[in-house]
């Protein structure tokens, strides 16, 4: 028996983990402060395109920055509507997703390649050689970021302020905290991480942009947040679990015997997400004011 498929599985799992983990960790920061952003899917989509265009203009680093900037701008719109303008977070998120789907499809047509846009090799982020094969350096970023955010949320004063804005905005307001500003910054940070995840997909992982490159990952990240109970370290684990099932699907598809039709294999990550979320609920507690705009009495 050839066991090399195990290292293949691990390698693909790690790659598939990155966008989920980054997006989920960013959303944990946002949800801790009280905003629930279902527009993450759209953010990943737009930043994948922005990342690809940025990378082709100024190299991989510019690409990553472009993705993060796109993520920041969209979440800034989201959070202005939902803090200062007291908007409905669900509807705003739906709007962002619709906009992103149209915008990216439109952009791909404008670039002259509807459906599939290949990113130039030189613009892609080079992979590192490791004992288990070539790994993208962003995998290590995704492994470190959850620990930093964990430390930030649990051990710093700023993390406490964030929690206050989500749990008890009135008390935070009385204590002199600018609740809306805190929420705006937290959500924008979340957008930056989702944008990094999106740019990673186009310039470090796939090397291409398609009009449904995000493939539900924004929502899978939301599910991961539920699973994690707002703990960034569990989001890392959740991201890896999802990545594993995606790599399993990829691996089954390449089997020469074709034991299962590919359409059923493709369903696997979504089914697992449902099962994981269904199993996680109950033991998880979310901020009291999550999803509600803060209005001063």
């Amino acid at each position, binding site marked *: 028996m050839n066991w090399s498929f195990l290292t293949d599985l691990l390698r693909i799992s790690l790659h598939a983990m990155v966008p989920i983990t980054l997006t989920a960790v960013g959303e944990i920061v946002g949800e801790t402060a009280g905003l629930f952003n279902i527009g993450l899917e759209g953010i990943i989509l737009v930043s994948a395109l922005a990342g690809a265009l940025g990378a082709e203009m100024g190299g991989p680093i510019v690409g990553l920055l472009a993705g993060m900037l796109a993520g920041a701008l969209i979440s800034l719109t989201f959070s202005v509507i939902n803090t200062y303008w007291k908007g409905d977070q669900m509807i705003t998120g739906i*709007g962002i*997703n619709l906009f992103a789907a149209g915008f990216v*499809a439109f952009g791909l047509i404008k670039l002259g390649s509807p459906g599939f846009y290949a990113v130039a090799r030189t613009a892609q982020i080079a992979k590192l050689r490791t004992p288990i094969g070539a790994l993208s350096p962003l995998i290590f970023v995704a492994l470190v970021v959850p620990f930093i955010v964990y430390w930030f949320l649990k051990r710093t004063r700023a993390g406490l302020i964030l929690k206050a804005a989500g749990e008890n905005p009135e008390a935070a307001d009385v204590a002199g905290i600018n609740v809306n500003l805190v929420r705006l910054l937290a959500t924008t940070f979340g957008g930056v991480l989702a944008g990094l995840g999106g740019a990673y997909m186009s310039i470090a992982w796939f090397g291409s942009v398609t009009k449904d490159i995000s493939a539900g990952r924004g929502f899978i990240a939301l599910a991961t947040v539920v699973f994690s109970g707002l703990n960034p370290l569990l989001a890392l684990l959740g991201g890896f679990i999802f990545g594993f099932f995606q790599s399993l699907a990829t691996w089954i598809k390449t089997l020469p015997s074709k034991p299962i039709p590919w359409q059923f294999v493709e369903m696997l990550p979504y089914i697992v997400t449902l099962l994981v979320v269904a199993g996680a609920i109950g033991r998880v507690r979310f901020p009291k004011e999550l999803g509600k705009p803060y209005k001063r009495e």
Partner: protein
Amino acid sequence: MSQELTGSVPRKEKFVHRTLTGLNPAIESLLAAAVGLIIGAILMLVWGYNPWKAYVALFQGAYGDSYGWASSAASGVPLILTALTFSICVRAGMFNIGAEGQVYIGAAAAVTVGYFVLPGGLNLIVGLIFAMIGGALWSLGPAILKLTRGVNEVISTIMFNWIARFLTFYLVAFVLVDPVRGEKTISIPVSARFPVLVRGTDLSWSIFAAVAFAIVIYFVLWHTVIGYEVRAAGLNPSAARYGGIKSKRTMLLAFILGGLGAGLAGATIVMGNPPTYAIISGLPQLMNTGFDGMAVAMVGRNHPIGIIFASLFFGGLTAGGRTMQFTAGVPLEMVRVVEGVIVLTMAIPELIRVFRVMRSSWSTLMNVLKRRRSA
């Protein structure tokens, strides 16, 4: 608001008040549509298109002649139904994004009537029933997860959409496949098709099915006890529970009614749209029906009557978008960008207030500038 106006208030004032409060939502929707079109125009300018030419083409294509009106209405038919799916659940206090997947399943279920030989119009009715049951069954998954495990319906319905997409891919490729032409399913038999209403267009009798469903939903939500309970649970869950309303029952009902609507939407697409009367591989006719429906629902203010008007607008965007693509060269996808901006704008509750604030701050700014100039 209207409850406050009782007793001594003269009837005329009451009427004026009611008209104004009734009109407000419509004005907000029009404002949102305008914002969407303006931001769309700005994006077109940025990308190097002529927005004026594009919009002239779009609106002429959509409402310029009877052919345009018929095409707009035809594109709007499934959107009425998927918008209702979303609205019923919003009325019940939930965000059901699952119409997309339920449309796929409904369409696939409708296609199965091709295997039956039934007398006369029975085929059509059986097809509709299959589609509605298919849509409702698919909506049960997220409903059960929500009621038993508390799974957020936004996440679960999106997962079910993806699963439905791949399931329908499979059904189209292997189960319902046309033995002669592998790129599509078997066709709906002639006896099960909606007759074309306006010759030479896509508009068929399916529009009456959609409008009838909207009226039924209106009746159920506003004129039955269970409908009242659904709306009460959506407005204030804890008060409704205190009043003895079982929220689980209302949630389940909202999901099922929504699923019936989305399934019917799938049926209207495969049974009412010439010339294919089949699902084409890759599901191009079905894709985005559910998502576009959410925009229709919001602009229609989650009300069946509002939704019928909003579907004419969004159907017009789709139908006119084709003309825009053809004559002004602007890709059809621009329409979805405009849609997204409209929904974003609709999310702002005090939209009119925001505009008023902007206008007053603008005039303050102008006054300051004037004063400075005169000083």
